């Protein structure tokens, strides 16, 4: 008997029991069920929720694999110094690097999925509804937006918090106001700030080696700039992602490819991505302009971040990752086409603003997206109202025209 049949029988057996949703989920996750709807009008489409989720995960896989190598590269470079004649094959794509990533990042992925899906199953059983696929993407995003050495128990608590408070209390998948992955990151950030910022958390083992003779560290570019310190990474390092940072946020190149893939498959909104990039560039240009005009003294604590060339804001920190994978979340983003332009623009604009002006938060993209998540319904409301008003005006005009004729 095939696995599919076995799962089907198991499902039948438990169909009236309390745990039916759990077995249903297992069955439909692995296979398309045989049952079909017989009555009523229905639309047959392949791009169901599960397909959508899997497309995003596909777009994330290269980033995950890259992050394995980068974890090792940052770790060994912090110990031995950065190679002077850097070659990707010799220094980056090595088995040693990959193994470091395997022991640090794979557990994060496992915990994220295990705990998150566990909570989803639990709620499905208690509430008696089907398990929703909502966590599939969140579970993959979460390990990619946290530092490499985040303790697993902290991640587990944050995931429980994010799924329960960020999603389930609002009614589950599709009903949440805030992006669950960012809720999890925000929880970690405010709960355990020492594990989420500083120069020790971005490199594997830096925390446990702190204070010993083997101490290592690696500060992110934004962190260095916030302190007015220098960094030794070239623009191509920033673009291809050979820099310290949260697990999956570093490689703008791969994020760009993933973004194009999402646009091509029509999963992610190009309007949001484009307008967010424009927003970030505009804010960056304003800051550059302030520096060029000499309105800010070079001893100001904002000077270094403000004088960062405007386009480099896109390739350092998590801005690119946030724009492509988080801002485009169809549930929490603005729904109207026009609203998406405002929504995206403000995300880019505010991200760079928080980055520069708030020294306590060297990275602002997650706060900017959460803020705009809250405002998305308001934006939609006014876009729709504007539409109604315009049409009313048009109707009145045409009626007036008819009367004069």
């Amino acid at each position, binding site marked *: 008997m095939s696995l599919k049949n076995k799962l089907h029988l198991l499902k039948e057996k438990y169909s009236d029991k309390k745990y039916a949703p759990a077995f249903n989920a297992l069955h439909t996750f692995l296979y398309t069920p045989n049952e079909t709807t017989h009555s009523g009008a229905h639309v047959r489409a392949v791009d169901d929720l599960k397909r959508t989720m899997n497309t995003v995960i596909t777009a994330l896989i290269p980033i995950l694999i890259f992050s394995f190598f980068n974890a090792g590269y940052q770790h060994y470079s912090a110990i031995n110094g950065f190679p002077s004649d850097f070659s990707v094959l010799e220094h980056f794509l090595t088995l040693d690097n990959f193994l470091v990533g395997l022991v640090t990042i794979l557990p994060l992925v496992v915990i994220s999925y295990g705990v998150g899906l566990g909570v989803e199953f639990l709620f499905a059983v208690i509430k008696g509804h089907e398990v929703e696929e909502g966590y599939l993407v969140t579970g993959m995003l979460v390990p990619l937006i946290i530092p490499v050495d985040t*303790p697993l*128990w*902290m991640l587990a608590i944050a995931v429980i918090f994010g799924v329960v*408070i960020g999603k389930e*209390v609002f009614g589950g998948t599709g009903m949440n106001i805030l992006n669950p992955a960012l809720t999890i990151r925000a*929880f970690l950030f*405010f*709960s*355990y*700030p*020492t*594990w989420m910022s500083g120069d020790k958390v971005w490199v594997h083992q830096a925390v446990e080696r702190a204070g010993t003779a083997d101490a290592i560290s690696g500060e992110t570019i934004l962190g260095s700039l916030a302190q007015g310190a220098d960094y030794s990474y070239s623009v191509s390092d920033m673009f291809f992602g050979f820099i310290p940072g949260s697990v999956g946020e570093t490689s703008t190149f791969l994020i760009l490819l993933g973004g194009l893939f999402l646009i091509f498959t029509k999963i992610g909104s190009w309007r949001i991505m484009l307008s967010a990039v424009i927003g970030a560039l505009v804010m960056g240009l304003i800051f550059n302009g302030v520096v060029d005009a000499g309105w800010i003294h070079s001893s100001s604590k904002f000077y270094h971040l403000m004088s960062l060339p405007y386009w480099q804001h896109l390739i350092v920190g998590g801005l690119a990752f946030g724009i492509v994978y988080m801002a485009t979340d169809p549930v929490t983003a603005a729904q109207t086409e026009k609203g998406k332009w405002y929504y995206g623009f403000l995300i880019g604009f505010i991200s760079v603003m928080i980055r520069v002006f708030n020294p306590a938060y060297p990275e602002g993209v997650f706060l900017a997206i959460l803020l705009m998540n809250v405002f998305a319904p308001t934006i939609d409301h006014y876009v729709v109202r504007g539409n109604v008003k315009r049409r009313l005006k048009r109707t009145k005009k045409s009626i007036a025209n008819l009367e004069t004729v």
Partner: protein
Amino acid sequence: MGLLSKKDAALIKDPLFDNNPITIQVLGICSALAITAELKASIVMGLSVLFVLGMGNVVISLMRNIIPSKIRIIVQLVVVAALVIIVDQVLKAFAYELSKTLSVFVGLIITNCIIMGRFEAFALGNGPWKAFLDGIGNAGGYAIILVIIGFFRELLGSGTLLGFQVLGDPIAKTGVYALGYENNGFMLLSPMALIVVGLIIWVQRARNPKLQESH
């Protein structure tokens, strides 16, 4: 309770649980979020409101037939302000550190909606004994929630209870800290207090479906 008639007992019991001012009427949230980072502050705040509301209800109830209804709000404000000043001065005299922690929130008891609400809704229309019980009950309900929030926030946020390190020493890494546990800084911030209030509301309504609003 033999001491109280069934009706009188309900005056105290209802606001403690099924008609709790914070979790059911959603009043007095401001101070519940602001001063509950420590259990001690929560307890003192609860006791202060207990004193102010218990006494205030009695005073207003005694004066209820002589207060012209046009100026009743001002009279109520004078009464509650007088009582709050007494509390504030006592705290400053005997618990100065604590009064600094509570800062403006003792003074802000005046604006606590629970107090004006009970004056308006109950003390103006009932005798002093009943008004006293109602005041004690409502302030008690407020205090219970404050203590619950304060308990969780101090335990999880600072690892202490009433200032005692019940989970071990976070710097010397003893107790649970030796296992890698760390205090949750989010618990000390007000947003988390709101979430804790939300969780209490959730638990209470899940246990007693009668409290759930239909919509």
